[in-house]
């Protein structure tokens, strides 16, 4: 018999890549001492598709569709960053109506993103119901996507110089089928009688009450607070040093929002507030996002009011950038040639480089374009908002319990489409 104490070593195990709380494909190598996390090493790249390299091989316009597939829960915002970078290099600006449409859809996207985040975050912590509620509201907004672009998720709606087309005057309606009778369908169609703007307006009337419902379920919920208050605290200094942006940075108490500080499109003409947290824990990040839902709703209403009153072009007239109208092509040789050149060769961007950033629902989403004057980007770098956030995970969860890993991870709002690119 030996009287030496047995050697105790930390236990290392895999979290993911196939784990419901891993938000896609995250392989997290956790080193634990009992229940306490000593070190976390995220392995990313399982969804790496080399979007940037693919973009270098095809004309600029083709890449807009790839942008949707980066952060696949905030599709149009990704397009926006890319399109802004192109516009910056071209030295053009979209017509003002197109800018309002972009802002409106950016805010719709923000609600889409935050709702999915809220549902998934609550589900990770153990509140099942909220996911179902969140998807109920998401459905209406995805219908808006479909009405305007024909696609529920991967819209490919923004273009350099504007948006693909104007808002539709009629909202598509449900049709009766052997499974759904006339009466049922009439109830669904009640708010779809008017235009898309009427439908969105109706949504914004209902939505604040829904946010109240979510808050009733969570904000003062004792279990919710036990799981989130004081968990994953990030000080403002560390948040800045770690490159955090968006709701994470604001949750730590830094009032930084590109929509206010470096306004793009028409944000400087709209009225909204920036919510800020106090302690920088998971609960504060939750509160910040809840308030952003309300602010986005407020912004959408302002855009709808403006868009109702101000018709106009949604695409610049310059046919070197925007394709000519179908009707013009039937009668004008010039339009025909423009169309042919744009569709086969695409547009050439002037030599140079540009970085355009937007306030994406997850933080600062930037696109850095290097052009050598060709019809394809020479180098495109996507600055994904979630990338530095996930890099900060190790620091955030050291010393926490294993169960808190899930709470912290989902409070960062991670989507692998954009992190792995």
């Amino acid at each position, binding site marked *: 018999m030996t009287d030496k104490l047995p050697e105790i070593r930390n236990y290392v195990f895999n979290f993911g890549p196939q784990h419901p709380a891993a938000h896609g494909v995250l392989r997290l190598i956790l080193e634990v001492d009992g229940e306490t996390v000593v070190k976390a090493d995220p392995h*990313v*790249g399982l969804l*790496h598709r*080399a979007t*940037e*390299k*693919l973009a270098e*091989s*095809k004309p600029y316009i083709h890449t807009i569709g790839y942008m949707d597939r980066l952060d696949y829960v905030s599709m149009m915002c990704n397009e926006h960053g890319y399109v802004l970078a192109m516009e*910056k*290099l*071209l*030295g*053009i*600006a*979209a*017509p*003002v109506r197109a800018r309002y449409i972009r802002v409106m859809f950016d805010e719709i996207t923000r609600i889409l993103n935050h709702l999915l985040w809220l549902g998934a975050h609550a589900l990770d912590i153990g509140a099942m119901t909220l996911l179902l509620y969140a998807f109920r509201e998401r459905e209406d907004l995805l219908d808006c996507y479909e009405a305007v672009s024909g696609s529920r998720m991967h819209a490919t709606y923004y273009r350099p110089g504007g948006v693909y087309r104007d808002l539709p005057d009629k909202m598509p309606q449900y049709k009766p089928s052997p499974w759904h009778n006339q009466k049922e369908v009439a109830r669904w169609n009640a708010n779809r009688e008017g235009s898309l703007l009427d439908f969105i307006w109706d949504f914004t009337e209902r939505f604040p009450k829904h946010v109240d419902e979510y808050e009733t379920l969570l904000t003062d919920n004792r279990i919710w607070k036990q799981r989130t208050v004081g968990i994953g605290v990030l000080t403002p200094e560390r948040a*800045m*040093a*770690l*490159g955090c942006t968006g709701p994470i940075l604001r949750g730590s108490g*830094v009032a*930084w929002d590109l929509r206010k*500080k*470096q306004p793009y499109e028409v944000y400087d003409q709209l009225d909204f507030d920036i919510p800020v947290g106090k302690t920088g824990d998971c609960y504060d990040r939750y509160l910040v996002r809840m308030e952003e839902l309300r602010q986005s709703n407020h912004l959408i209403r302002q855009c709808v009011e403006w868009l109702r009153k101000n018709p106009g072009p949604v695409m*610049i*007239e*310059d046919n*070197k*950038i925007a394709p000519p109208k179908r009707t013009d092509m039937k009668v004008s040789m010039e339009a025909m040639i423009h169309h042919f050149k744009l569709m*086969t*060769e*695409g547009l*050439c961007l*002037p*030599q*140079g*480089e*540009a*970085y355009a*950033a937007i306030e994406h629902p997850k933080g*600062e989403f*930037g696109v*850095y374009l*290097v052009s*050598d*004057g*060709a*019809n*394809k980007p*020479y*180098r495109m*770098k996507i*600055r994904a908002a979630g*990338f*530095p956030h*996930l*890099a900060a995970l190790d620091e955030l969860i050291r010393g926490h319990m294993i169960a808190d890993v899930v709470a912290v991870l989902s409070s960062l709002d991670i989507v692998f489409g954009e992190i792995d*690119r």
Partner: protein
Amino acid sequence: MADLHFLQEETNKNFGDWIQRSEIANDELTLEVDRHFLRNLCFMLRDKPKYAFQTLIDVCGVDYLQYGCSEWQTESTTRTGFGRGMKGDFSEVASQWTKPRFAVVYHLLSLENNHRIRLRAFVDDEQPALDSVVDIWPAANWFEREAFDLFGILFKGHPDLRRILTDYGFIGHPFRKDFPLIGNIEVRYDAKLKRVVYEPVSIEPRILEPKVIRHDNRYTGEKSGD
């Protein structure tokens, strides 16, 4: 947004020896930094209150190997067409690039002063290596790993320089311009062997739309909108 010209003057005045070129284009200030002084400059930009760049937004590698190369020469009337799905090497114009092949580009942001700056440091062609800035901005950790993974640029002093986005055991640096778009290795499940096998790619690289460069300045002076 703070005045970029003021920032340009200040940086030129104070760090003139470290900066090779400074340029304002598209409302953005770019400094080309001598790589030996990159860390000194970064410390200054972070700590001096008039710059106060507390946040590193992005680090990315750029490979200038084929800068200015086009696949189809169409400046004047061309006698040859360009069919879809062309195979082989179609670089008709050689690159005019005279600077080193690799560069690392840093985007910095100051929340306090609300301004941005871009730094570019060229690295040696043979041994692409640069000092790491991880101890200045911890955010650089993963960004530098990414640049190492995709371009093979080494960062001296990085605590944990591993691949990040590519597969375990990946060979090569995929974002270099001489790395084929379709890759070198393909992966499939072999039903007979009952495991995943790695093989050389079975497809050939093709060009669908040729890269064309036009210097006719079609867009200069055409500011539209509103």
